[in-house]
């Protein structure tokens, strides 16, 4: 009986999907062909002043979605640290990694952070942006925490940075609401000179906020995984 109901549910859901998707115009020919995409590619420079059309879509045309994405990521990281962070202090591992590995990671660290910052700052000019740049910065911190016992994450600092970045994002959105454009996340600043760092209005600022938020969030979440008291503890003799 249960299988019968599952079958009916699946068939009904499949019918729903087919009817809905069948009505979306994905035509390869005719006038419906990629009308939204063509319009965005044609208008993006005049509308937003961003050289990278993808960024203008992510931050301005669907900025509210991006806020939702950031919130989802925040909730996932929060759940991860909530589950993995114990009440007790975790003892540091007694052994240390090899000297070559440690020195190599110290050498690589500033360059990886610089690359992440480059991706974030040039988000509206070249491919990339806040999300991948933040992940690159978080990766640099993973390498340092993984290889060296001396470095401890200051988790309070990380969470303060993250909250400030999130607040900056929402404050920029509300500033758009108060300005002349009168809508949430509106591009209230000037477009500036095309293809320079400080162009495209609020896009660089929002991407900087997203980058800092994603970077500190992931660093905190995976750092809590490193320091978690649960699970198998590595023994010194292993």
């Amino acid at each position, binding site marked *: 009986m249960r299988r019968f109901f599952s079958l009916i549910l699946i068939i009904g859901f499949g019918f729903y999907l087919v009817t809905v998707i069948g009505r979306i115009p994905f035509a390869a020919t005719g006038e419906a062909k990629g009308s939204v995409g063509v319009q965005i590619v044609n208008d993006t420079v005049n509308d937003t002043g961003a050289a*990278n059309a*993808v*960024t203008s879509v992510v931050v301005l045309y669907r900025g509210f979605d991006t806020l939702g994405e950031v919130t989802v990521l925040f909730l996932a990281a929060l759940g991860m640290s909530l589950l993995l962070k114990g009440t007790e202090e975790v003892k540091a591992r007694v052994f240390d990694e090899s000297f070559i590995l440690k020195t190599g990671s110290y050498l690589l660290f500033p360059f990886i952070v610089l690359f992440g910052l480059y*991706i974030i700052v040039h988000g509206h000019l070249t*491919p*990339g*942006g806040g*999300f*991948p740049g933040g*992940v*690159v910065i*978080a*990766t640099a911190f*993973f390498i340092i925490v993984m290889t060296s016992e001396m470095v401890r994450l200051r988790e309070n600092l990380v969470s303060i940075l993250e909250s400030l970045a999130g607040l900056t994002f929402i404050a920029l959105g509300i500033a758009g609401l108060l300005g002349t454009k009168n809508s949430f996340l509106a591009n209230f600043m000037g477009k500036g000179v095309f293809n320079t760092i400080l162009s495209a209005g609020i896009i660089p600022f929002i991407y900087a906020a997203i980058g800092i938020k994603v970077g500190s969030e*992931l660093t905190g979440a*995976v750092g809590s*995984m*490193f320091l*978690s008291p*649960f*699970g*198998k503890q*590595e023994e010194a003799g292993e």
Partner: protein
Amino acid sequence: MINYFFLLLVIVMLGSAIAIIFIRNLLAAVIVVTVVSLVASILFIFIASPDVAITEATIGAALTTVIFVLALSRTKKKT
């Protein structure tokens, strides 16, 4: 020429994706998942979407691998 390169990449990607099911060593399986992500990011560059390629390379290849390896190092093998 570019088509053969494309074909090679797709074969590598499909082969590693199928291999994941049969690998018994969990750490090796995680590394093969990374290979799938890397090849996917190269393919994204070929279809002219560098934004997606960067995201795939950082999240699929770096972040996921770190989280999987950490989780593996924290769990015991069932005996």
